[in-house]
């Protein structure tokens, strides 16, 4: 019982960060329908940017080991958003948005190959620049815990770093969903995704809307990556481990739904942690995909996917 509660707590905490990670891709893949296989590598860059901001750029010296990492991680978001903006401007915009009309398969084939190419460049470029040694954003909070309880005679231990990671994820998620559902920009992004032609008739610059979504999605996933890096060591190829999980989360939550992508990521985090109760840890990822298949079998549109046809 104690083990179960502990795994549940761990699952909820990691799930919140996975959720944020999936939301970043959800904006690009779910809402804008652009395939980005380099998204895991954008996250890897986010981890390194947070790492270097913390260590070399002096944030550690000014803010210390407890607050410093989180400031560096939050700053990595805007850095990667700018990076994503220019990658879209220079490369992705040629195979997405208003250009898709003249491309086969809505530009998806071209996006697939282009972003796989970008992924290879980032991975191997990362290897040259950052080296292959494992890095991590170290904070004393990663190795201390809050004790919850005792409930009856059991206590649950919450790793402090993971606890803060989860709270930061939830805050950003809340801000983002307000932006998407309430603000003018958010609504015009959804309109541009729904019907690019009609959005143009409304005076919405569809390519710029796509670029905004791409930048936002890159920045969000970078922050999620930085949060993960407080507990998990990383290396230039770390994106590969996460990108499949991200796609699974987005599809699980339902294409086009930001809230759905978050719950998709949360489900994956929970399954991953809970499966360790009954399965060897090597099978964690296998368990994720067994559950994924089961859910998709019974609910093919995902948790929040709507069966409204897109015109």
């Amino acid at each position, binding site marked *: 019982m104690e083990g179960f509660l502990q795994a549940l707590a761990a699952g909820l905490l990691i799930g919140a960060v996975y959720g944020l990670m999936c939301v970043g891709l959800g904006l690009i893949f779910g809402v804008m329908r652009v395939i980005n296989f380099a998204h895991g590598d954008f996250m890897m860059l986010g981890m390194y940017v947070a790492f270097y901001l913390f260590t070399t750029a002096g944030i550690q010296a000014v803010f210390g080991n407890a607050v410093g990492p989180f400031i560096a991680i939050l700053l990595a978001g805007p850095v990667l958003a700018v990076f994503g903006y220019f990658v879209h401007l220079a490369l992705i915009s040629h195979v997405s948005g208003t250009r898709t009309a003249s491309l086969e398969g809505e530009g998806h084939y071209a996006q697939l190959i282009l972003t796989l190419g970008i992924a290879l460049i980032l991975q191997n470029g990362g290897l040259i620049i950052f080296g292959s040694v494992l890095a991590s954003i170290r904070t004393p909070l990663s190795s201390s815990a809050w004790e919850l309880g005792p409930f009856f005679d059991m206590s649950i231990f919450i790793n402090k770093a993971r606890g803060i990671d989860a709270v930061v994820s939830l805050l950003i998620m809340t801000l983002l969903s307000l932006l998407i559902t309430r603000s003018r920009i958010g609504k015009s992004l*959804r*309109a541009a995704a729904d019907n690019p032609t009609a959005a*143009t*008739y*409304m005076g*919405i610059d569809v390519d710029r809307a796509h670029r905004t979504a791409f930048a936002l999605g890159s920045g969000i996933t970078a922050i999620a990556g930085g949060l993960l890096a407080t507990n998990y060591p990383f290396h230039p190829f770390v994106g590969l481990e996460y990108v499949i999980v991200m796609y699974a989360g987005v599809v699980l939550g339902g294409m086009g739904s930001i809230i759905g992508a978050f719950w998709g990521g949360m489900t994956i985090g929970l399954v991953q942690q809970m499966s360790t109760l009954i399965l060897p840890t090597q099978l964690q990822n296998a368990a994720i995909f067994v559950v994924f298949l089961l859910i998709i079998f019974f609910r093919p549109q995902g948790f929040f996917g709507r069966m409204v046809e897109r*015109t």
Partner: protein
Amino acid sequence: MLRIEGLSAGYSAKAVLNGVSINVDAGQFVAIVGPNGAGKTTLFKTISGILKPSGGGIFFNGVDLLAVPPAQRAHLGIAHVPEGRQVFPSLTVMENLEMGAMTESGRRDWAANIERIFEWLPVLAERRGQFAGTLSGGQQQMLAIGRGLASSPKLLMLDEPSMGLAPSTADFVFERLIEIRRQSGLTMLLVEQRVAEALESADHGYVLEAGRVVLEGNNETLRADDRVRKAYLGM
């Protein structure tokens, strides 16, 4: 207000429009009629910038439209109610109307516009929280019209508002359009296959066939023309 001169356009090699010239004066209600495939929708897409013409010019209040990027044309005061309605299915009725009001004038006049739109098209007020994708065809058409009006346009372009609607619904949509026009005096350019209704309510009409203007004139001249009577009015 809108002046189209010798416009030619088409898809890759196939020319759809061949030297089309059309003039819409401020306050006028102009109808363009003609059979399927005459190039009516292509003409509208070219005005809105979704298609690039191969020749000719389009001027809106003296501005050379071809030099204006497509997404900027709405901001000049052109509202396009597209063929097949094309509402945003995953946005609510209210959010669809807000998208119509992305232009500066639309934002400025939002409160007054929305009041008038709800008065003209009360079904939109009833359904304001509903996703547009779940509306019926007629309701979607009214939403598309309301969305166009929400931008405070100088020119409202309507592409086959009766398309795919039951005859009684189409009649109702027409009746609403005429009422809106009567109350607002808005300049309208209508493309329509329901020739009788279109010519009856318009001040001026053009007959488009195979990408060319074959006939033009005011509503009485056109309705008295033998060719129009035989081919379109069934007389």
